[in-house]
């Protein structure tokens, strides 16, 4: 009887030993957002959102406008953003982006716990995540509301920027879609 008990215990211990994590498969690999952001990105499309109209639930035509080429001689598509690991550089060209970010080289960092909260990243729960850039002492906050499209043959980066008034209230939101070069 004793022998049987020991055998059973040994068997159970053996079964549990077989339950170690499987590190060989590719399913569930950790997403490296740093790597996904790395590259040269050019603005493809810009939408402007009237936040007051959005709050009031006005129809789409009164809430959002495509302004990519709205200003004569100042296409947003002139803007290029090169992102490396922790550093970045911008080319403004004739685009209106000079009213958002400085031209030149600088640094960037995550503004949420994305780098550590890998589970959330995999699930796409990054609603408030984004990056903070700093060029020549000027810091700018870009929100990333979706990572959809950042992978694949034609990667797209979606950056949002909110314009605040002097009281700190957000007045407008700009949604930039950048294509990887």
């Amino acid at each position: 009887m004793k022998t049987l008990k020991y055998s059973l215990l040994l068997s159970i211990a053996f079964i549990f030993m077989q339950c170690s994590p499987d590190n060989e498969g590719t399913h569930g690999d950790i997403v490296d957002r740093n790597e996904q952001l790395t590259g040269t990105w050019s603005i493809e499309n810009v939408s402007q959102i009237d936040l007051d109209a959005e709050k009031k639930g006005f129809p789409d035509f009164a809430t959002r406008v495509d302004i990519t080429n709205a200003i004569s001689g100042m296409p947003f598509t002139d803007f290029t953003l090169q992102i490396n690991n922790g550093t970045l550089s911008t080319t403004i060209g004739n685009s209106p982006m000079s009213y958002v970010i400085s031209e030149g080289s600088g640094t960037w960092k995550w503004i949420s716990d994305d780098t550590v909260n890998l589970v959330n990243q995999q699930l796409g729960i990054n609603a408030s995540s984004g990056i903070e850039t700093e060029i020549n002492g000027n810091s700018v906050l870009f929100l990333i509301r979706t990572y959809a499209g950042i992978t694949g043959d034609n990667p797209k980066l979606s950056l949002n920027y909110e314009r605040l008034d002097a009281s700190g209230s957000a007045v407008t939101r700009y949604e930039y879609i950048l294509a990887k070069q």
Partner: protein
Amino acid sequence: MKKLLLTILFLSALLVQAQNPVVTGNPASYTVIDENIEILFNVAGATDRDGGSLEGKDLYIWSFSSAGDSKTNGDWTNINPAARLEKLSDTEYRLKFPITDGANTYRTLAELYGAEAAPGSITSIGYLLRDQAPTFQTNDLTIPFAPFKFIENEVRTFPSQATTKDVVLFRFNKNFSGISNPAMIGAQNITLHVAPDVDALLAIEIETNFNGQYYEAAIIPAETFQGLFNAGTLSTLEYYFFDTDNPTIQSAQEEIILRPAAN
């Protein structure tokens, strides 16, 4: 037969007596983001759902909206004192904004229902009146309010509110039903005229593009009126549109007040 008639008469009398409070506003029309509004309940002749008179009673409001319940509801068996209506007379009661509830203050209906970030999500507001216990309550009733409504205009800007550093799109709607100058309808080419109110000599004129619905042109005020922007005096822009081929034919004039930008 007599008994039946009497019963019908009695029931009819009860139905006639059952009356809901009359809700009015001060001002008469208000939206869910208007501050300092008053909602008045006239309970003259009004009854609870069992037919008991509401007149002169100590009344509390229990309310709910499509966006969420009132933050002053508390528990059904332990209603929040902040939900007590102010008794102006035996028949007039008042819910007055701002509502103070301990450390919290609700300035608008949107704040009361926790929908200040998306007030457009409030599409209906319901309420009932009751006493503190409650030993009585009315049926579920409705508080009316004015919905947000986008008002089309002959000329306007997008966005409706902007800072000096925003892209501002000026739009002329040739198909607007109440167009101020019908001669503009025949214009083939349309130009935008924009001038800062502090210096009309700095006015600019830009040929518009037709996007299928609007004739439009955009600027960044800080770029276009850089001198005023740098001096910190860029604020109000006046604008109108005119027939490029006959500049005396003009649209209505409007203005946009720009806010200083913090970023």
